[in-house]
């Protein structure tokens, strides 16, 4: 890609929007994931007894939490894909069309 096309894409409002939204969304979800996971690890490391608290019969908090983290991981990736497919691909297509069209 030549210097001129590059500069034009960088100034394209669609590009600015795409990059800003995607990176803030991606980092937000990443931070949520990191907090959940390291929260869990902190519990394992510093308060292991909490893991073994029984909440329903023999089912413990730790089991529910563990299964919950697995489910949340799947749900968060699903949310990202849905939003990306709905918004980011359109923006990307617009940027590409613009970059090609004006050439």
């Amino acid at each position, binding site marked *: 890609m030549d210097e001129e096309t590059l500069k034009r894409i960088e100034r394209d409002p669609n590009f600015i929007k795409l990059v800003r939204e995607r990176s803030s969304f991606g980092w937000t979800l990443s931070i949520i994931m990191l907090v959940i*996971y390291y929260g869990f690890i902190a519990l394992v490391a510093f308060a292991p007894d909490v893991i073994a608290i029984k909440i329903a019969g023999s089912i413990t908090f730790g089991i529910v939490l563990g299964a919950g983290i697995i489910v949340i*991981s799947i749900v968060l990736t699903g949310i990202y894909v849905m939003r990306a497919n709905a918004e980011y691909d359109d923006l*990307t297509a617009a940027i590409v069309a613009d970059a090609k069209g004006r050439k």
Partner: protein
Amino acid sequence: MKSFIKSSALGAPLAVAASAAYAQTAAPAAPTAPTTDWNAIIIFAGFVILTLGITYWAAQRTRTTKDFYAAGGGVSGFQNGLAIAGDYMSAASFLGISALVFSLGYYGLIYSIGFLVGWPIIMFLMAEPLKNLGRFTFADVVSYRLQATPIRAMAATGTLVTVAFYLIAQMVGAGQLIELLFGLPYTSAVIIVGVLMVIYVTFGGMIATTWVQIIKAGLLLVGATLMSLLVLVKFGFDFNALIAKAVEVHPKHEAILLPGAPVANPISAISLGMALMFGTAGLPHILMRFFTVSNAKEARKSVFWATTFIGYFYILTFIIGFGAIVLVSADPAYHDAKGALLGGGNMPAIHLAHAVGGDLMKGFIAAVAFATILAVVSGLTLSGASAVSHDLYASVFRHGNVDEAAELRASRITTVILGIVAIVLGVLFEKVNVAFMVGLAFAVAASANFPVLLLAMLWRGLTTRGAFVGGFVGLILAVLLTVLSPGIWEAVFGFPKGSAWFPYTSPAIFSMPAAFIACWLVSILDQSKSGAAEQSAYEAQYVRSQTGIGAEGAVAH
């Protein structure tokens, strides 16, 4: 001693912690004469014939390097998701984690979770830029704006070290499993695995390897689902009753609901967590899969499907582990006269298959476990071969002056060499406890490959010098600290307990930040002209990583 080794090899549940765990729990089994399991052999033979047929078909379609390394870029997101899941759900995951749950309870679930949580991060930060910047290997991405020779040499080293450790663990595991289940001698078992994987990869390249993964992932998911259902049926689908019974039956009773001794030290727990989470994002054979899809959208879909399948699978291993506590640990039929588990510590899932579904189910699950190993070693070999032929041979030694045919030939020759090396290492390491090796692979991936890759994609300031130094700092530190940790220093070298220089189960908490800091520090101190040029080339790389403009197969530009 041999039976202990047997138990820990496959159980390699992927970290050094496991070797300590196994040392306590895997009671030495009396040497049992291997009996030939015809169900397993017939089912496995079916798998081999089917996959060889696919390899023949794939060979007709493997003409270019793009076909060989990236299946022509024509794999769909869903297919790739299954293939990634296939690459990721190794026998160590299946047999190892269910065995960990079997012996230590909740501790096994910590592994399952750690192995899964890397995937969302890959999705949110890495999948799209990775696909938009790379062609065949992750070194393509790192060297996009940096100097090819040093960077590819560094990335290829990281790849080969990761692949080697992973491969040894899988080969030794395969040999022991097959010896045990099929009644074949260890050496012939290792040779069969080596020869089959060389055939798949040499002739069928990524196309065959992808389909082998997909079939194997399907088989494994079906097998694990079936087993879990059969376990739950026995408890009237009352999960609560399953747990209650497991606590009652297990010799540790209530303690199996606690996290367990190996992560009792907070630094060990956090360090292990880091290695598992970020190691995933630095495994070369997994990263390579992102180049087999046509665009960033398909790359995204792959991660979603992979996360779904892998997450589902790990929930099943937990049910299988608890099911085994109830149905296997209390049944004398699965134990020898001394009360040790037949076949060693990795066998709970196999015995459970027998307990819930008889000989046929046991044969099926054994065959699936073998197919699993075979598929994983194929993926690893292809990844190692690509590092040698694409990164080292074509870029470092020939400086890119190499035609398709020559590079293709080099990758095939490398595959054969790697196959021979894998067989030799598999035989050499037969009697060595290899439990630490998969853990080491994850630690190296998290410390050497991941920091450099992430910074190359997301940080403008990274220069060649920074990446080179940072990558090697992570690599050397991860290997060194692992060698000095109790898992090797005491368990393998036999030095007295407590003499290990590095007291924690995983090095990642030190080696990974050290790699990041080294990358950062060396880059900001780098005043060279080339460094400045590399930083200013970031803009163009960034636009391409975000939009895919100029990426192969994405947009005609």
